[in-house]
C-alpha cells in the first residue's frame, strides 16, 4: 500500500473540510487515482443519520499522485477531521512551498508488543518546510493517526446512497442561506425536533418548512417564488417539458423545468431540524445548490464548492417515518 501526494495549494481542500468539520469528528478519505471522496457518516447508523459525500478531482488538487493498493488502487482512511484541518491550516500559515502527504507505518509505542501491532493503524504524514524570520529552514512534520479500512470491513463497503424515485428537483438561489437563520430562531432545545419540508412546483415553486407541535403552534417558513423546479417521476427526470415561465432567473444550462400535472402534487419529507440545519454552512458557502426530494423518503442537497464544479458536495438526509 502506498500513498504519496504533493500539492501546493490546499485552500480548496481545506475549505471543503471546514464546511463539514462540525458535523462529525471523524471522516473517511477514499483515495483513488482520479477521485478523492471525503465521506462523513455515522459509524453505527449509516443509513438513518445524514451522510455527506464530497467528491474532489485528484488531478486538480494534487500536483503529483502515487497510489498503490493490492487489489484496486483505492485507499480508504479513517481519521480525525480536526487534526487534518489543523495540519492544513498550519501549512497555509507557514507560507511554504510544497506539502507532501504520505502514508506511513505507525510508530509502535514502546510497551506494546508486536502481537498488538495492527497493520491497519497507520499515520498520515504531512511534511513541509518553512523558513522563519531569520530565514532558517525548518521542516515541519505532522503525523495524524489514521486507520486503513480494508475490504470486507463494513465501513469500506460504504456506498454512495442511491435515492430512488426523485420527485422534485429544485435549484436553490444563493440567498437561500438566510432561511436557515430563520429556522434557527425557532429551534428549541429538544434534540429531536422535527421539521416537515414541503415543496411543490406550482406557481413558480414553493418550498416551505413547517414546525409544528400539536395543539400549540404551527409555523411555516417558506420560499414562495423564483425557484427553478423540475418535477419528475421515477423515469422522467430527464424528460423535457414546458418551462415554468414564472421563473425570471432562467439558467441556460438547466432549461428543462417542468410542471406537468402529475408532478404538481406537493412533495413532503419529514426530517430532524438538527439534521437539516447542519447543512447551513454548506449552503451558505457553495454554488449551484440543488435540492432533490423524494416524497416521504429522502432529501438531498447537491452543490459545488465553486464555479469550476470540480468539487461536489452532497448532503443526504433520510426521511423519518411520520
Amino acid at each position, binding site marked *: 500500500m502506498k500513498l504519496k501526494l504533493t500539492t501546493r495549494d490546499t485552500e480548496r481542500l481545506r475549505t471543503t473540510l471546514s464546511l463539514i468539520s462540525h458535523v462529525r469528528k471523524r471522516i473517511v478519505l477514499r483515495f483513488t487515482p482520479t477521485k478523492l471522496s471525503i465521506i462523513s457518516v455515522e459509524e453505527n447508523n449509516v443509513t438513518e443519520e445524514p451522510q455527506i459525500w464530497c467528491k474532489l478531482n485528484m488531478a486538480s488538487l494534487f500536483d503529483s499522485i502515487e497510489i498503490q493498493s493490492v487489489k484496486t488502487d483505492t485507499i480508504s482512511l479513517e481519521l480525525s477531521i480536526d487534526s487534518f484541518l489543523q*495540519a492544513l491550516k*498550519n501549512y497555509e500559515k507557514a507560507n511554504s512551498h510544497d506539502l507532501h502527504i504520505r502514508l506511513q507505518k505507525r510508530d509502535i509505542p*514502546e510497551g506494546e508488543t508486536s502481537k498488538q501491532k495492527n497493520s491497519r493503524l497507520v499515520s498520515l504524514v504531512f511534511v513541509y518546510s518553512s523558513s*522563519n*524570520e531569520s530565514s*532558517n*529552514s525548518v521542516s*515541519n*512534520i505532522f503525523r495524524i493517526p489514521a486507520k486503513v479500512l480494508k475490504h470486507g470491513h463494513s465501513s469500506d463497503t460504504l456506498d454512495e446512497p442511491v435515492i430512488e424515485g426523485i420527485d422534485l428537483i429544485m435549484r436553490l438561489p444563493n440567498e437561500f442561506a438566510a432561511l436557515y437563520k430563520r429556522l434557527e430562531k425557532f429551534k428549541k432545545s429538544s434534540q429531536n425536533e422535527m421539521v416537515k419540508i414541503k415543496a411543490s412546483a406550482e406557481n413558480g415553486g414553493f418550498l416551505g418548512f413547517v414546525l409544528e407541535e400539536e395543539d400549540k403552534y404551527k409555523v411555516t417558513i417558506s420560499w414562495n417564488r423564483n425557484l427553478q423546479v423540475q418535477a419528475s417521476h421515477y423515469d422522467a427526470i430527464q424528460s423535457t417539458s414546458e418551462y415554468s415561465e414564472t421563473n425570471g432567473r432562467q439558467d441556460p444550462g438547466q432549461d428543462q423545468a417542468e410542471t406537468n400535472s402529475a408532478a404538481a402534487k406537493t412533495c413532503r419529507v419529514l426530517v430532524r431540524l438538527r439534521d437539516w440545519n447542519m447543512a447551513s454552512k454548506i449552503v451558505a458557502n457553495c454554488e449551484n445548490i440543488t435540492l432533490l426530494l423524494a416524497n416521504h423518503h429522502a432529501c438531498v442537497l447537491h452543490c459545488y464548492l465553486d464555479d469550476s464544479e470540480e468539487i461536489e458536495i452532497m448532503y443526504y438526509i433520510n426521511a423519518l417515518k411520520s
Partner: protein
Amino acid sequence: MSFVGVINKDSNKTIWSKAIQSLAGISDYIKIVIKAEALSISAVNIARTSCGEIEFKKSFFYQYDVDFTNVIKDGFQLESDDGDGDHVASYSMIVNSKHLIALFKNIDAHDLEYICLQAHISTDTPSAVLYKILVEMRASNRILRKYQVNYEPVLQKKVDIFSQYKKELYDQNMSEQAGRGVQEGVKYIMVDQSIPRQFLDMMPSSTEEFGIEVNQEDMLLSGFTNQIVKDNEYIKQPMSVAVALSIDDLVHSNLHNLSGDSSVRINFRLKYFRNFMQLVSSINTKSATALETQDNITSHYESIENSEEYLELFFKNPGDPILFELKSNRHLVIQYIQVTNDGNSNRVERSGKHSKHTSTQSSLKKRKESKNTNAFVLQPYAIQKRAAERQSLPKIINSHNGASHDLPPASTGVAQHASARSDADRPADQLFVPESESQTEEAASDSNANFDLTFSGDSRQDIITYGNDRNTGSIPFLKPGSDAEEIRKPHVRELRSRKINTYGSSETNKRIIIDEDTEYETGDSDDGGANQEELGPTQGPKRPRSILE
C-alpha cells in the same frame, strides 16, 4: 523599610503580571528571593519535576532598594558565591500564589501609575507589618489600592543545576579543544525563541509529551502523546507534530562535536514547558505593543534587543534535567528546569535507524520510576511542604525569639487584636510566635525608641510612596507634610474600610488582611507624637491622601 521595589513602566508591569501568572500555574506557592541586585520569583511543581524562576534585575524596577541592616534572621541567608568567595545576602519568603494572582492578574498596565512592593525585614519591624508584603498600586484615576500579603520566611536551598551545567559546559569546551566529544557531557543549544514558540502553536492542545532529539546534522522537536490505546481508540489520539532544523541554522550549539551517528533524545511532559513558553511569548509580544504606544527611545531600544532574544538549552542525557534560559532585555532572566524521562522510556518517534528499545513495560510505569532514579532531583528548595518547614522549625523559632524582643510593640489594644486575629488564621505549625508571648511593656517602650531612631533621618522615607504627577510628566516624590497629602488622607481611609468589608465577608480564610487599624493609625489618634513623622508617607499620617478631599 528594608525592601522597596517599584515598577512604573507599562511593559514591566505587564511582565510582572505575566510572570506571576506563569508561576502560579506551576505551584500554589511562589518563592520570592530578595537580593541586593535582583528580585527573583520561582516555583516548583508539586511532583518536583519542573521549576521556573524569573529574575528581575534591579534595572527592571524604577526604584529598588534593599537594606539588610538588622535583618530578621528568618529567611536571611548569606550564600557564598563559587567564584570569588564573596557572600551574597538574600532574604527568602514564600507566598500563596493565589493571593498574588488576585492582586496582579489582569492589571491594566496603562491605567496603573505604579506598583510598589515593600517588605519590612529588619528586626525593629512593627508587628502589624511583620511577615507581610505591602503592595501599593495607584491607578490613574487617583484611586490608591493597598494590600498586605502574608508571607512565610524560608531558608532556601539553592538550585545550582544551572551553575553546575554551565561550569561543566565551560570545562567541556576547554577539554574539547583537546579533542573530546560531548556524548556524555552537556549539550548546548541557542535557538531563536520563535522556533519553539511557533512549534507549540502548531500543536494540538491535548498533546502531552515533548521531545528533543539531536544528532550531528539536525535538531528535532516533537510533540506527541504516548498512550497505549485500543485499536479503535487509536485515531482519537491527537496527531503528533515535529519540526526539524539543521544544526547549522541554530544560533549557537556545541552539537557539531557529537560523534558520528550518535543521537541524543530526551523527552518530558509538555505541560509546564508550554507554560514557560507562553510566558516567553507574552513578554515578547507585549514589548512589541509597547513600542507602538510609547514613543520614547528607550522602548525602541528594548524592542530591538527583544528581537534578538534567544532561548538557551542545556541538557545532557535522558533522565537528566534539561534547562532553558531566556535573557530578556537585560532586566530579566527566565530560567526553567525540567526533569526528563529516563533513557528506558525513550520512545523513538522517528522511524529509522534509532529504533532499539523494545520494552514490555508501560511507559507510564517507567515515567514514575524515572523520577526516582534521576541523577538530579529538584530539591524542595522553595519549601512548599509543611514537613520541610517543621524540620527547620526549632532553629527558626529560636532566632525568631531572639529577635522578637526587639520587635516594636503593638502599642494599642486594637493592634493587638489585629495581630492576634492574623495569628488565629495561621495553621498550628507556623513559624510565628504569638505576640503576647514575646511582648512586655518594657520591651515595647524600648523597641519603640529603637524604631524611632532607625527611621529618623532615614533618607529613604520620602521614596516610599510614589506620586506620579501626570501633569508635569515627571514623577516627583511626595514630600511628607506637603499639602496634597494632608488633603488626601480621609479619602484613602474610606476606601480601605470599604475593601475590608468585601474581603472580610467572602475570604475569611485568605491571608490577605487589609487591616484598617494598623498601629500607625491608632498611633495617629492616640499619641499623635512627633515620632510619627518618621514613619514615612505610606504608614504615618503623611501617607498619600486624595486631593479630592
